[in-house]
Structures are given as C-alpha cells and as structure tokens.
C-alpha cells in the first residue's frame, strides 16, 4: 500500500513537473523610467521568456513607477495585483532588510569584491525572500554611487560642513550618516533639484548616470572619485506566480534573465562613461581620492554600521560579510 501511495505520489510529482503551462500573464512593476536601459533590459527578458515558453508567458511591464514606489509594489505583489517587479537593493531590503547589508557605505570597494561577496551572500538572501513569498530570479549590478557636491570633496572633512541629502523616511540611514558626523538632511528625490538651487542641500550621493539624467550635476559640479556603495537590484517574482511555471522551464528562464542583466551591466557602464564625459564637457570636475583619503572614508563608514545592527541586520551577519571581505583581500 505504501509503495502504491509512493508510486502515485511520484506520478503526481512528475505530472506537475512536466505539466504544460497554460497562458500566464506576469504583471511586472518597475521604477525604471520607460526607455531607460533597465526598462529595455526588462522588455528583452519579456521577449525571451515569451519565446522560451512558446508564447505562453506574457509579461506586462508597468515602468516608471506608475504602479507605485517599491513598498507599493511589494504590497501589490502580496495581494496578487502585481506578479513581479524589478527592485533596487533598497527595494529588496523592504522584503528582507538584511539585503541592505550589501549596500553599506564603504564596505565593498570594487566590482571584483562585489562579485565575490554576492557569490557568498545571495543564496542566503534568496532563502530569506523565499520565506516571504518572493523568488529572486536574478540579481543585477547597476553601477556605483558617488558623492556630488557644490564644493570640492576629497576627504571626509571636506564633506562634513556641507548639507548632505539622504533618503527620506528611513531613520536608520539618517542616523548612520549623522553618527559618522555628517550634516545629513532627509529629502525626497523629487525635491533635490529645488533644494540644490536654493542652497538647502549642498551635497548628495547618486550613481553618475542618474546625476546626469536628472541634471543635478548642473549645480553640484564636483564629483568625488570614491565609490560609496554598489547599486544592486533584482528581478523578483511572487512565489504564487513562479509556481505556475513548469519546473523544467524555470532554469531556462533564470538563465535568460541572468544573461540579459549581465549584458545590461556592460551597457550601463558604457553609458555611464559617456555620461561622465558629457558632464565633464558641461563643467563637472572629478576629484580623485588618494589612498590615505580612501582609508579615512572607510574608517568613517564603519562608524555608521552600528545604526543598522540589531535593527536592519544582526551583528553576526555583518561580521560574516566583513570576514569574507577580509578573506578576499588577504588572497
């Protein structure tokens, strides 16, 4: 009897694994503007998934934040109004706060360190998001964040007298920057241009491509060469939707999405290089950071980590990441 039950169970499982996919519409939210490189990459993924699934998977993309900001999109995924979304690292941390640990200021230094640490940590983060009902189809690297300011900034002491814009509605981020000794002011991105124009803000951090696109650099004409933190993100699908896709098809979809985002990183780097060249033509001055200044930035950065420990992630998690980085740097 037991054998019979086992046999039936195996048949059921096989049937589930190979069952044909009936038409599945995946509604995908994205804060990336329509026509941006990230939006184009998402459309490419949509086209590839349609081909892989023989036309049965139809992704409807809602770009430019028209279906809400990142917390809104998570809420809509929870109630089944949306089925997937492209998130920034910040957005993914609204699902699992621990993911923010990858975006800590002055923790990871470059692309190679980032690739190493993502290889070590993302399987753990994926388990955390899965527990919340979300499948991380692929992670994406989207560049690095730099300081832009109205006066030259090379050393931390240059930034401290300036009014620094930080993300609004996030008490930990505000506290972290203030505990590092900076004059941090919470501000909505929507108000950044006006705040720069009227002097309410004198510095902000952003990827160069964003600074160029929003033309904030027209006022904050100084870019500090040090990379503050990587900009990461990911394509996340609700488990409810993902489970409707035959198991045999899923690896192909994942591979296709990974291929597209890998190419996206190459494309955005090229675009960023071109954007920096254009900004320089229009008056941007880039201040390279000597080794002693880089060390000071890292030292200052560590002071801010305590603001997150015990609230956003555990001390153990931070120690683990720092341990991996030490291991990598000692190689």
């Amino acid at each position, binding site marked *: 009897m037991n054998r019979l039950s086992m046999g039936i169970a195996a048949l059921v499982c096989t049937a589930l694994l190979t069952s044909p996919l009936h038409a599945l519409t995946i*509604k995908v939210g994205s804060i990336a*503007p329509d*026509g*941006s*490189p990230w939006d*184009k990459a998402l*459309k*490419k993924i*949509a*086209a590839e998934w*349609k081909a892989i699934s023989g036309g049965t998977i139809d*992704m*409807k*993309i*809602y770009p*430019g934040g*028209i*279906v809400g900001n990142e917390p809104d999109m998570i*809420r*809509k995924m*929870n*109630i*089944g*109004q*949306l089925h997937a979304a492209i998130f920034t690292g910040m957005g993914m941390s609204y699902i699992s706060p621990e993911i923010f640990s990858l975006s800590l200021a002055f923790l990871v230094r470059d692309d190679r360190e980032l690739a190493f640490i993502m290889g070590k940590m993302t399987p753990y983060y994926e388990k955390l998001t899965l527990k919340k009902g979300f499948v991380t189809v692929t992670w994406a690297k989207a560049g690095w964040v730099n300081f832009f300011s109205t006066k030259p900034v090379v050393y931390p002491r240059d930034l401290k007298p300036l009014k620094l814009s930080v993300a609004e509605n996030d008490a930990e981020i505000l506290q972290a920057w203030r505990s590092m000794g900076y004059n941090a002011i919470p501000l909505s*991105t*929507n*108000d*950044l*241009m006006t705040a720069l124009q009227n002097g309410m803000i004198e510095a902000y951090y952003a990827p160069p*491509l964003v600074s*160029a*696109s*929003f*033309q904030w650099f*027209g006022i904050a004409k100084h870019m500090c060469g040090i990379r503050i933190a990587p900009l990461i993100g990911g394509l996340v699908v609700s488990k409810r939707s993902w489970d409707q896709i035959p198991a045999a098809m899923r690896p192909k979809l994942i591979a296709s999405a990974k291929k597209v985002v890998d190419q996206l990183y190459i494309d955005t780097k090229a*675009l960023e290089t*071109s*954007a920096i060249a*254009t*900004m320089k033509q*229009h008056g941007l001055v880039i201040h390279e950071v000597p080794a002693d200044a880089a060390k000071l930035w890292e030292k200052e950065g560590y002071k801010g980590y305590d603001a997150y420990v015990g609230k956003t992630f555990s001390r153990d998690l931070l120690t683990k990441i720092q341990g991996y980085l030490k291991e990598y740097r000692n190689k």
Partner: protein
Amino acid sequence: MNIQTLQYNCLILVLASVLVSCSGNKLALRMVGDALSSTASGTALTGDDDPELVGDALPFALKLYEILIEKGSDNPGLFLAAGSGFIMYSNAYVQGPADMLPDREFEKKEQMTVRSKKLYLRGRDYVLQGLELKYPGFSASLDSGTLPDLLAAMKADDVPYLYWTGAGWMAAYAADPFDVAVGVGVRNAAAMMEAALRLDEAFGAGSIHEFFISYYGALPQSMGGSEEKARHHFKRAVELSKGLKASPYVSLASTVSVKNQNMKEFVELLNKALAVDVSEKTDTRLVNILAQRKARWLLDHRDDRILSDAPKGVKKK
C-alpha cells in the same frame, strides 16, 4: 481650394526637381524655397484623410528640402519647413507606429525608436539653422547662457521656430532619456517653448499648450513635472482648439491619467478624442486621424498601462 493647393504643391515639387537639377540659378532656388516654405503648401498634407498616402509622400518632400538646403539656401523659412517636416514625419510615421508595436517585437521597436530620435534631432538642427540665419549667434547662446536675452528680443513670427526646435528636442529626449548630451539641452528647449507661449499663446490652435501637457505630465516631479500645470495647459489647449483637436485628450490620458492609474478618466478622455469630427477637410484633419488611431490603440491596451484591481479571493494584507 484644397485640390488647387495640392496641384500647386505637386507643380512646385516637379519644378523644383527640374530647376535644382538643371541649374544653379539662385533666383530659381529662392523661388522654389519661398514657395515650399510658405504656408500655402501646408493644408494639402494636413487636411488629407489618408495618413498612409501622406506618409509615402513626405520623404520625397523632405529630401527635396534637403536638396535645396544643400544648394546653399539662406531662406530661414526653408530650414523651418524642412525641420518641422522631419519632426512631424518622425512623430507620425516612425515613433508613433513604434510605440504601438507589441513588446514581442522589442528589437524592431528599439530600432524604430533610435531612428525616430535621429530624425527628431535632424529636424531640430534644421530649425536651429533657420534661427541662426534670423539671429546670428543663436546656436552659441545655447551654451553661453545668453539664451534668455535672445528669447526676450524675439517676436511673434519667431514662434514657429521656437516651437519646432523645442518640440524636436524634447521628442528626441523622450525617445532616449538617458542620452545625456541631448538631455542637457532640455531646459533650453523648455525655455524656447515658454517664450513661444508668451509671444503667441494661440499658436497652432493651442499646440504650445499641448506640448506642455506632455512636458509637465510625463516628466518626473524631480525634473519639474507637475500634474497641476499639465491640467492647466490641457484646459487652455481644449479652449483654444474649441474642442476640435483630439490630441490634447490623448496627451493628458497617456500621461497624467496613467500616472494616477485613473482608468475612468483615461477612458473618458480617449472617448472624447474619438468623438472629434474628422469628416470635414480641415487643417487638423490628418493629426486628428493619427491621434484617434493612437486613442483607439490606447483603449485597446488600457490594461497594459493601468493595473486592474487585485483578483477576487486574494486577501489584502
């Protein structure tokens, strides 16, 4: 009158080909240039009810303009006619159809969008050359910060130049918002449109207001976008066109209504666009037919832009 205009244009085109190819006669060049750039040559195209026919004819006319320009025309009106022609063609026959392609034709859509951007910039640059002929040093003023002074000195007959430069520039930016080299000039384009609005608010039966519906409706707030301003310009565009243009309704629906995820308003506006009468041969007939084509497509694809409610039975968290 309209048939006469069409015959007139055909004659001009044939004569132009002959004159330009057979002689370097400056007088002939000027005559053809003046004829092509005059307002008399406009309604044969804009009053047509067959967008495909016009789309097939336009490239010939555009190349003719370029031939005349290459021959050394110094007629600003010819540069304006060429530039506005390229911008109109790109909008109606390249970007418009690209926007309506399904996502599965992603590659084709991308190629067409890239092409539309190139045509917009080509058109913008011709109009800028026309402005340069009228106001030597105009192009340099874009980078030197002296544009506001020049704009303050302009007159009502400069409005078409300002309008088409701004429209071409902004359309190129919208086609590729991450082309920083184009993006840095967006504020100049907006300044030209503001100047045009100040000089002749009623230009093109509210065309400048229409531009600002899309401008304020589509731009993110961080770059100056404003629903309130978009609605103000919508109101004025409808008033100035006496409700006879479909495009203001399409512009507000596809920007503000989508941003607000307001399906009711989206449908109402597009139905108003479809209700505009296109049976009469007016100078807005062609653009109305094209705008109604877009309105129909938007209505058919409303769920691609506005998220429907959560499925029944799913508990809200």
